[in-house]
């Protein structure tokens, strides 16, 4: 009986759409400092991270860097960028990836590794918390602006 109650509580919490990520995070989309791109629109960022048109505004091919698994920063990023839960983003990507439409994006395990990767890669684009910016990176789009 106790197990049933716990299960029902879990279901109820899911259905009530309790969003543990409601707290504001200052997330920014960044590129390497040597990248000529200075600013991007929301639709351009969506195109890049959703595998629709993987290029910078000047037409140069881009390499989006994403985080693996269900990290809070990743959940917050997609919820704010495309208004979708991670499950819906994954469903979208499964259509893109398993039809062989585009190459899978590069995935790294943590924000620290994302920063290391981007410091040395002029054509990469990623997202991170503004407070973790380094001198090798620059902001091209801010999520809460």
């Amino acid at each position, binding site marked *: 009986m106790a197990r049933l109650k716990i299960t029902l509580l879990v279901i109820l919490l*899911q259905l009530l759409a309790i969003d543990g990520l409601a707290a504001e995070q200052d997330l920014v989309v960044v590129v390497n400092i040597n990248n000529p791109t200075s600013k991007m629109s929301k639709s351009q960022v969506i195109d890049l991270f959703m595998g629709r048109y993987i290029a910078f505004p000047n037409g140069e091919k881009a390499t989006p860097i994403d985080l693996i698994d269900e990290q809070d920063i990743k959940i917050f990023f997609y919820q704010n960028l495309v208004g979708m839960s991670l*499950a819906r983003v994954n*469903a979208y990507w499964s*259509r893109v990836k*398993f039809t*062989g439409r585009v190459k899978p994006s590069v995935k790294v395990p943590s924000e620290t590794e994302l920063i290391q990767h981007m410091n040395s890669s002029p054509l990469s684009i990623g997202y991170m918390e503004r407070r973790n910016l380094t001198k090798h990176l620059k902001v091209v789009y801010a999520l809460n602006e």
Partner: protein
Amino acid sequence: MKIFLLIWLILTPLVNAQPKDLHFSGFGTLGVISSDSKEYGYRTDLGQRDGSFNNTPDYESSNVLGLQLDYALHPNADLVFQSVYHNQNTVTLDSTTRLAFARFTANPTWSFRLGRTPLDLFLLTEYRDVSFGYIWANTPIEVYGLVPYRYLDGGDITHSTHINHLTLRSKLFSGTSTSDFVASPQRTESFKLADIVGVTINLETFRWSLQLRYSTSRFANESPSATQLASGITALAQSVPGFDSIWPNSDETITKLKSKGEVVYYSSLGAKYNWQQWSALAEVSKIGAKRSFSTVTAGYASLIFHGQSFSLYSIYAATQTDFVDIDTLGVDVATLASIPEALELYNALDVSLNLYAINQSTWSVGWRWNLTPSIALKCQWDRTRIKEQGGGLWLNKDFATQPKETVNTLFTNLSFIF
């Protein structure tokens, strides 16, 4: 089913422990289908031999396991291999290989693929087996049941561009494809589509998309059963004196039974729209040929509500095909009945000419619950009204007697990606 779970448990940890240039991933579905008709057995498409009759659970038809390897050769070139088990009638390397292509991405605008790619006939044909990728428990059989073809051996060229805030993606593809058709419980025939040439045009923003598809192809082989019927009519014409007066223009009937060289076209217009927590999706499709079968017009519309971790949806789907009235052949059936086995031949011809005369409509309601961001549980109830002699999508005892009936079908499945 246990084997599926075991493979999944073994493979999942490997996904995050792979070399940088090699990407391993996969998808799958475990499910059960139950349909309440004694006459009609639910099947997901015409290539399926298994079906659910009389509330007997069918555990085979919705089970899918797909494994994919992506290997980056160069920043502009990569290789993709995907193997999919989806309850094929024969499991061989050829029948399970879904993707095996080399891609060259010249720039963000142009890309070329050569090898085996998914066949892009309708809105969801490319990913119909990736259940996690769509909300429903099953794609509407009114549109997708008639097309068991899964892959294209050939190549394609894709052009992507931006027009203001719109993305325009156009694809030209060409090649061949082969699939089984289960024409009766005892008879599975393989049909090859040759000279496939198709185009896909997709205009979209992230909120909406409008997609147009058109392709033509040619049947590369004859149907063994239709050839047998044609031979039977020829033999009668040669052996029965005055056969022309009993069966006028029998040559024309024989021509109708020949599929080799027949041009077949597929067309589809589909649209999607996302608005806050709602999505709408609709598609109209047509499959046509000059002589072998009547044009099949089908379509569906679906409305979906998205909660934080669940989705509720409804679908209405329908298909319409003109029935070939065998009486219009002008055969003197009374006289024909006096010739041994001739009436059986005539009745078999009726079944053959109307094999794809599909007339039915379905209301569906369903629910998807995302248990985790990569596992979803789905349940769906279909209520299908089949018109008399319009149940060609279903398994049937002899495919000759297809009474009018309303059938309830329940789907439950667990889909996942890794």
